[in-house]
């Protein structure tokens, strides 16, 4: 199952359930919502075969041994908890939560330069917890994201926090990146989910947890174009209503040398993937990409040899899963990518 199809399926299947959960949880409290997560999670573990298989394969990869049924349940349950917590975080019911922040110096150091900041998040743990931390931020925090087919769900979630929509810059709008640039000029933070490559996006295939995986190239190309510092963000769920937030300085400036653009890009993406790998190894049950994250690897490795001789060993691809992989260095820009940076 592809990332896009997984997203689409979840959004459709859970809309009425989300409505019910929002009402029950916010009316009766976190404990009631949490108790309901057990049967709901069990239902999803039993019904979502692709997700179950992906969970099992991921845990096997990270734990180094086959995962038990209980561990697969725990994996799904962690995801359910993050979704539930999201309701409380967005509706500002923060008294329930214990959120520890590490690396505040790193983000402050980036902001002190007044060049804006690109914050790279992921689907490891909770991205939403950033919104809580952002309330303490001296500058606005924007979220560059791809909403696509999740609009109905986004609307439900945004209803919890009317300011959410204002902070979202939607990828796909022609002026999206101009807005990002204006944010950077004002010294603001623009956060991006940098692990999941939507179809039709530029990707770079790099080693990740033992095998090549396709990562979106957009966030780092964007950071390079803007010349902003880049900071990593991880919002790890460590227990019930407990989160550990990590900020980590990544780069003063992403520089992509014109003559070796593909290699430079691949090396930055490889660095990002290495950091994500470290956090994923430490917190495997926070990994919320419930699809085969490595599914692109066959296509990437069998990329047509259109790349120039000095191209990086890693395929840098444009286009969708089924499409051919084209290298930045090949100068072939007639790709069908129209949607911009991944979110």
């Amino acid at each position: 199952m592809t990332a896009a199809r997984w997203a689409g399926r979840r959004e459709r299947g859970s809309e009425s359930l989300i409505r019910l959960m929002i009402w029950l949880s916010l009316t009766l409290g976190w404990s009631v919502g949490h108790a309901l997560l057990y049967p709901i999670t069990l239902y999803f573990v039993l019904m979502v075969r692709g997700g179950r298989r992906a969970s099992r394969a991921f845990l096997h990869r990270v734990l180094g041994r086959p995962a038990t049924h209980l561990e697969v349940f725990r994996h799904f349950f962690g995801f359910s908890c993050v979704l539930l917590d999201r309701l409380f975080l967005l509706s500002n019911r923060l008294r329930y939560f214990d959120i520890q922040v590490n690396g505040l110096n790193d983000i402050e150091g980036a902001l002190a330069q007044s060049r804006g900041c690109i914050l790279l998040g992921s689907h490891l743990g909770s991205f939403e917890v950033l919104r809580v931390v952002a309330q303490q931020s001296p500058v606005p925090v924007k979220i560059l994201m791809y909403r696509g087919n999740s609009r109905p769900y986004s609307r439900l979630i945004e209803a919890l926090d009317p300011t959410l929509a204002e902070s979202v810059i939607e990828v796909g709008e022609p002026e999206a990146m101009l807005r990002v640039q204006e944010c950077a000029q004002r010294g603001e933070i623009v956060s991006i989910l940098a692990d999941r490559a939507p179809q039709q996006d530029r990707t770079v295939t790099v080693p990740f947890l033992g095998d090549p995986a396709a990562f979106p190239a957009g966030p780092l190309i964007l950071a390079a174009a803007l010349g902003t510092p880049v900071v990593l963000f991880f919002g790890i769920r460590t227990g019930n209503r407990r989160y550990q937030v990590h900020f980590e300085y990544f780069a003063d400036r992403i520089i992509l040398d014109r003559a070796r653009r593909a290699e430079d890009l691949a090396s930055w993406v490889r660095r990002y993937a290495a950091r994500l790998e470290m956090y994923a190894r430490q917190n495997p049950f926070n990994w919320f990409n419930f699809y085969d994250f490595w599914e692109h690897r066959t296509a990437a490795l069998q990329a047509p040899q259109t790349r120039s001789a000095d191209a990086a060993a890693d395929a840098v691809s444009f286009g969708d899963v089924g499409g051919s992989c084209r290298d930045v260095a090949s100068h072939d820009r007639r790709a069908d990518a129209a949607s911009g940076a991944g979110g």
Partner: protein
Amino acid sequence: MDTGATTEIEVAQLLINTLHLDQSPGEIQPDEPLFGDGLGLDSIDALEIALAISKVYGFALKSDEGRAHQVFASLRNLTRYIDAHRIR
């Protein structure tokens, strides 16, 4: 600096230099869409073009004008827009 009428060839050259395209200026058709089916640019390319435009022609494309889509629709539109707004 050339402050005469902005030509499509000149803007095509700017696109090629900025985006490292492997084409000659004459190969970019004036009416061909720059995004999607045509030249296949994406919104990050748009940003890089906007940054290059501000460097060369001295004005910034703004997101709040809601015209980015139209301006970037084709080489012809982009050239006209630059011609109307350039300050150098």
